[in-house]
């Protein structure tokens, strides 16, 4: 059963990857109404994630599939239990993904504005709801003896869950705006830096409350790894402040890097607070889903481990290469040239 513990962290790694990567492109999507003053500006913003949004989103598919394969009980309880929340996330992701690809297909402002709205809503809704979902997983939800969730959508909308949602919303927003500042030039870049400075302050306040609450919960629940929870929460807080300071000094790369580190540390804080449960039951602790009782067999996990061991480094390598290929800033003049060429 040791492999199940390994897989608890591999699944955690995949969700960390997902929240860091899709996190910033949710933020980029949400920043459109704030930073996109005209169509060229909006295209500049969208093109910062054009080549990568799809690979970023693939992380959730892989995380979901690995969750299914390594922890079928967890997957089944979570997905059937958080039904309506996931439905809304799915609808948002559909609307958003299609918009990236279809927005530029017609040269009509009305057409483009329609898709812009879908990008903004389709980015904000998952950014909020993923936080609600993860916070609720860690806090615990009503689960019966058969591992079935017995609550409803309203169960998830409790203060801690909502604060978790607000935290990811703001965190992803700021993270995305850092990315825009890092990847554009001209007016958009300057606006992004100013916006990040303001949004960063709100994020620091909200995230601090959420992290303290998480630590407090872990302490009162007697989480076995509470020392790590506290340490990681502190790392997250420090990184968050460091990213804000880096942005204030105009060091965009570091602002984005610390922003990413904040998300890594914050998700790990939650993951360690969860350990060794995977979905604690508030009905009766005896009904909780744990790493041991929710996992697949050793045989399956062994095979999965080989696959992950071989392919995850490869995936990381070629995705890093992709980011390197598209390392250049998306300049306003490039979009203007493309617009001019398309008009002929």
């Amino acid at each position, binding site marked *: 059963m040791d492999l199940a513990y390994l897989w608890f962290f591999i699944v955690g790694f995949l969700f960390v990857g997902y929240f860091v990567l899709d996190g910033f492109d949710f933020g980029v999507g949400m920043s459109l109404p704030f930073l996109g003053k005209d169509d060229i500006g909006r295209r500049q913003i969208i093109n910062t994630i*054009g080549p990568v949004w799809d690979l970023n989103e693939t992380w959730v598919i892989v995380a979901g599939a690995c969750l299914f394969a390594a922890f079928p009980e967890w*997957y089944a309880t979570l997905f059937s239990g958080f039904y309506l929340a996931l439905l809304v996330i799915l609808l948002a992701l559909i609307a958003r993904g299609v918009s990236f690809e279809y927005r530029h297909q017609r040269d009509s402002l009305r057409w483009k504005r329609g898709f812009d709205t879908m990008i903004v809503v389709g980015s904000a809704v998952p950014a909020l709801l993923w936080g609600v979902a993860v916070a609720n997983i860690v806090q615990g939800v009503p689960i019966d003896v058969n591992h079935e969730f017995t609550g409803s959508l309203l169960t998830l909308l409790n203060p801690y869950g909502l604060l978790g949602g607000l935290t990811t919303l703001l965190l992803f927003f700021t993270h995305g705006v850092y990315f825009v500042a890092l990847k554009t030039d001209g007016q958009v870049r300057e606006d992004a830096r100013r916006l990040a400075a303001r949004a960063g302050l709100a994020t620091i306040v909200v995230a601090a409350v959420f992290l303290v609450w998480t630590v407090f919960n872990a302490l009162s629940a007697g989480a076995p790894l509470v020392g790590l929870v506290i340490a990681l929460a502190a790392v997250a807080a420090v990184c968050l402040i460091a990213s804000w300071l880096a942005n204030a000094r105009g060091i965009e790369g570091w602002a984005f890097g610390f922003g990413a580190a904040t998300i890594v540390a914050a998700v790990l804080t939650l993951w360690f607070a969860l350990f060794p449960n995977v979905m604690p039951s508030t009905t009766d602790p005896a009904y909780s889903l744990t790493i041991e009782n929710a996992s697949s067999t050793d045989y399956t996990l062994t095979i999965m481990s080989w696959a992950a061991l071989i392919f995850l480094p490869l995936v990381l390598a070629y995705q890093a290469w992709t980011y390197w290929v598209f390392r250049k800033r998306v300049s306003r003049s490039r979009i203007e040239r493309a617009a001019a060429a398309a008009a002929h």
Partner: protein
Amino acid sequence: MDLLDPLLLARWQFGLTTLYHFLFVPLTLGMALTVAIFQTAWFRTGNLKWLHLTRFFGKLFLINFAMGVVTGIVQEFQFGMNWSSYSRFVGDVFGAPLAFEGLMAFFFEATFIGLWIFGWDKLPKGVHLATIWIATAGAWFSAYFILAANAFMQNPVGYRMAQDGGRAEMDDFLAVLTNPVALAALPHTLFAAFMLTSGVIISVASWHLLRGQNLEMMRPALKYGLWGMIVTFAGVAISGDQLSLVMVSTQPMKMAAAEALFDSACGADASFSLFSIGTPDGTGEIWALRVPYLLALLSTHSLDGCVEGINDLNMQYTTELFPQFADQVDGNFAPILWVTYWAFRWMIGLGAVAALTAVVGLWLTRKSAKRPVPAWAWKLAIWAWPASLFAILIGWVFTEMGRQPWIVFSLMLTQDGVSPNVPGWNVLLSLVAFTLIYAILAVVEIGLIIRTSKRGPDPLPDPDAPPPAEGALEDTPTTVY
């Protein structure tokens, strides 16, 4: 009928979202390869027509691919959302191919598609060409793992039951990956995907040729489509024949249901009906046009082979093999016969029509042809696209409806797989929401596809025009959203 029955609603939702997703999957599989081939032709010959064809079909490919990606996420979430009992029961076996698909195939596909779209002016030509080939390989591997997962539902192998009987546990992953159903379904699916792609190319090329435009690009495209259609139809037929042999040995009820064969029959009696009229309750037959021996030949590759009928199989399943499930299905282990019977025929019929279009097309456009291709022929050829698309969709309706009443053949009934704690109104809400958003997107998508198809590739430069200034000929197109 209870409108808020979660089982019924979950089944409709699965059918709707899966078929909708599958509108985009086969074209992705086939068009990725086609684009890779066209780009390779440009890379090797430097002939601009191949570049323009690459860009043009690449555009169609991407419009289609975007929808495939976003509707695919629904598929993976849906198992847990609507079918949690199923997920708990098979996760140990079924999850692994899905995870492999993500790690080994889908990551490749998504990453390298991005590199291909935006990498035209950022990568060396050869590396850029490699990205579309890697994306194609990713898509195909993806298909293989998904088919391996599906094959477990049709013909569970490589597992043992847990000691408490609560779930299936994998004990032989190699057996799961080499499930005979998966190995037979893979070529069938890939060939069919390429048939559809050929259909699309034939349609688009015919539309342009009918109007006499873009001749120097559309003529080679048409030829590619026509030959592609014929060759892959042969592949579809051969692999389909293999698949039905496997089906007879693993799921005899499905074959019996494909033919609506009630009583076991041998030799000449094991006939294949091209058309039939059944009694209104679907339990008998009033009249049918039959080809003797054909069913025996299809099922056993022998003229005097025997094919088991629905009634005999039901008897065997109820008393010997699966008595524990018999009460739940009222002793009837057959799927809905009118669905399987007609789906099987429409699949074959539409596929054959599409292939026939290609044969006629090759004849009319042969080098020694004395007359130009008549307008009606071009107009007819445009229908190769919908014909091949519906053939492949209906094929999946047959495969999945033919599996009923099982969600995993011999192990679990569909009715036992549904999430027990999701209220009917939640499922209804999601069904309505998906139907609405999918319908809206279909209108947008079809509009874009038709618009892009009609607009055609960028025209080739005029050969009589003076050569452009140095540097302007640099054909490194760029993509900007």
